[in-house]
């Protein structure tokens, strides 16, 4: 084809460029909601079939759906919303994606260029509002800049430490004609060059530290998941080669299989006793793609006091932010692990850490996840264990909302593979799980997608059940219904004198009838003996399901590191008597 002909073919409107760029970046699905300032783009979407649009019921739902899509596939999630309220409703998912390092490309409509700054209808300062909650954002004032910005947006969102980006496109730019340019290498922002490869000398130092370890622990996070399938594979090899115990943050679950012999369970505030004690007592800590978050460290001045710390992270600002480390290695988790493994295999051998494993076995024997079973009421922990047993071996993806149910899901559902677990870790967004499940189901139409939910969280984005019905997405919403904001209540009990200020949900809807009203399938279980049959029904029904699982109302989530305490001061369920709890929470007069 002649250059002239190519040029003529590439002459198109800004709106057409958006859809063309989506195709060029391999986007198959987008989540969105139309409105005045994006109508030209919606018109283009209408006239093609390569990119499927999923119509949500609220823009926040689109954002979380795109997050679920991204986390379960490793691909960027794409959102299309209108100006003003469309954009402001995206603020929560954008912030959520920024905190959890999820690649999102959000395209927002904007009022026409000449009206910007005039308080026009549905105008807001989208780039101003989303500046602190995106990795980067752009307002495109000239259609000639649009192709470059769109390509750059995908590049920035998906490389380095992934994150959300916003491209704000005024309506006149969507109508304007311009020359489309397909993605090229030169679109890369000159000032943006994330570092992927770790420093060889630092890696060598790390290996010699690992080889001499007596009480080592590997502590991993979402960075391993974000480094792709290769990351999880290399992590497993690394654990195998070193023989070290491994724990993970909430974000990193599934990178190492929960059934693996070296698995200690999750660490942190509601992590297992053995994981936290190993963190506290280790002499060498290898942190891979985690950021020493405050839910992980407990009190920072007593965090793992006797250890040398190695920290692998792609983001230099994660190094020494909360905890001083001895050997920082900047780079992509998979890339660095690959190099580390090579050096370790060539120059070191598995250190003998048998006494350490014996110590860990003693901690494990404390059985920190124990709970009192009942024949009368369903214990939430038991419900999740049942759910796990009955979905084991199936092609299952789990999302969650935020609160007690989320912690129980992390504790009791065993994840064997990465990208199977979608939860709002950093921001802690109630209402995340239902729309996230939508996104996962769109990406994996034949898989079993379950949102482990709470009765309070699920009501925040409940309207998206309608989306699930419309697009025949058979997501399963497994609600652990205790009629409370359980985690809020737990803190009120522990820290605020048992004054349960506004944490009880009066006037809960009848979830079974609600499912009916939406055209979904409703199930209720009230007794432990109901559970097996009800879960079976949930799995078999080929429709979206709202599962109202009535659980023990006052059950609390243990074990727990009380605030202001260190890893070795955990409160175990067996010891969480009224007196012990009151003592553990300095300043809290509360009794459980």
């Amino acid at each position: 084809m002649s250059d002239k002909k190519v040029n003529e073919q590439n002459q198109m409107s800004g709106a057409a460029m958006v859809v063309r760029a989506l195709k060029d970046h391999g986007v198959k699905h987008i989540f969105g909601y139309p409105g005045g300032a994006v109508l030209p783009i919606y018109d283009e979407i209408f006239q093609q079939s390569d990119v499927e649009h999923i119509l949500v019921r609220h823009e926040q739902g689109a954002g979380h759906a795109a997050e679920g899509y991204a986390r379960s596939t490793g691909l960027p999630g794409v959102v299309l919303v209108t100006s003003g309220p469309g954009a402001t409703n995206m603020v929560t998912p954008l912030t959520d994606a920024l905190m959890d390092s999820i690649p999102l490309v959000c395209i927002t409509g904007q009022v026409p260029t000449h009206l910007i700054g005039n308080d026009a209808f549905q105008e807001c300062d989208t780039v101003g509002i989303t500046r602190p909650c995106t990795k980067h954002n752009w307002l495109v004032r000239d259609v000639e800049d649009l192709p470059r910005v769109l390509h750059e947006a995908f590049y920035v969102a998906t490389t380095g430490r992934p994150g959300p980006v916003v491209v704000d496109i005024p309506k006149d730019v969507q109508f304007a004609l311009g020359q489309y340019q397909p993605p090229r290498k030169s679109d890369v922002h000159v000032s943006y060059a994330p570092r992927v490869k770790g420093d060889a000398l630092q890696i060598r130092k790390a290996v010699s530290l690992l080889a001499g370890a007596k009480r080592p622990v590997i502590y991993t996070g979402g960075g391993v998941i974000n480094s792709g399938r290769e990351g999880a594979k290399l992590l497993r090899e690394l654990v195998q080669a070193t023989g070290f115990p491994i724990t993970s943050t909430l974000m990193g679950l599934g990178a190492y299989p929960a059934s693996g012999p070296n698995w200690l369970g999750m660490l942190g505030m509601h992590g297992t006793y053995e994981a936290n004690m190993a963190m506290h007592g280790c002499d060498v800590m290898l942190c891979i793609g985690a950021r020493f978050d405050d839910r992980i460290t407990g009190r920072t001045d007593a965090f793992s006091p006797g250890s040398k710390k190695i920290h692998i992270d792609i983001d230099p600002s994660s190094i020494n932010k909360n905890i001083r480390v001895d050997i920082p290695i900047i780079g992509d988790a998979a890339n660095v692990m690959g190099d580390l493994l090579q050096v370790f295999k060539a120059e070191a051998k598995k250190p003998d850490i048998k006494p350490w494993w014996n110590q860990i076995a003693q901690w494990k024997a404390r059985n920190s996840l124990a709970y009192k079973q009942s024949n009368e009421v369903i214990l939430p922990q038991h419900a999740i264990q049942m759910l796990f047993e009955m979905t084991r071996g199936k092609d299952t993806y789990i999302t969650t909302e935020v609160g007690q149910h989320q912690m129980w899901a992390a504790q009791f559902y065993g994840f064997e593979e990465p990208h199977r677990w979608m939860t709002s870790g950093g921001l802690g967004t109630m209402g995340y799980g239902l729309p996230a499940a939508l996104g996962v189901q769109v990406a994996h139409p034949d898989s079993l997608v379950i949102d482990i939910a709470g009765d309070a969280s699920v009501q925040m984005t409940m309207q998206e059940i309608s989306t699930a019905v419309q697009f025949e997405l058979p997501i399963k919403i497994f609600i652990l219904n205790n009629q409370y904001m359980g985690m809020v209540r737990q803190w009120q009990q522990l820290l605020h004198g048992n004054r349960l200020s506004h944490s009880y949900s009066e006037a809960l809807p009848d979830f079974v009838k609600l499912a009916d009203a939406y055209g979904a399938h409703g199930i209720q279980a009230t007794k432990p003996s109901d559970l097996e049959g009800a879960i079976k029904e949930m799995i078999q029904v080929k429709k979206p399901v709202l599962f109202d699982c009535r659980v023990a109302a006052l059950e609390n989530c243990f074990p727990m590191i009380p605030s202001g305490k260190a890893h070795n001061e955990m409160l175990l369920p067996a010891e969480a008597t009224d007196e012990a709890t009151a003592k553990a929470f300095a300043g809290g007069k509360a009794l459980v």
Partner: protein
Amino acid sequence: MNQPASAYFLEDRHDPNETHTLSVLVANEPGVLARVIGLFSGRGYNIESLTVSETEHQKHVSRITIVTTGTPMVIEQIKHQLDRMIPVYRVVDMTTAGRAIERELAMVKVRGTGDPRVESLRLAEAFRARVIDASTESFVFEITGNTAKIDQFIDLMKPLGLVEVSRTGVAAISRGPEGM
């Protein structure tokens, strides 16, 4: 150890604060200054002084000079947080790099007659400040120097009829042949 009821660990940090001058080269694109300032306000960092101007018009590069205070850990964070912003090319800590020259320009308006007026002019000469505007009862002095020198000059002008001050904030550059 006794902290109030909180879901967070409330830590007292006692590390002493340091003052650092950072030079930040950025792509001169819309909103870049808002990004940098937003980072400081959003993460609770201090800005003592901030100076910004385009320095390489052809390449659309601007130079932002920021004087900030914080514990060594916070200063390190600030540098990394700035460096990871997409339009930031480079961040150089002029304070740890050493041998940097810092200058500020101030215009100082002083009103008075008789002895105070003569005294202000005499002091201006001693500080190598230039008179850039004069009336029968006022001067505007232009003075350049490091922050301490300008502070000192302004202090001396106070009893002599200081009316107002306009300062540019700090600009900094390293000594020797190397660029940043």
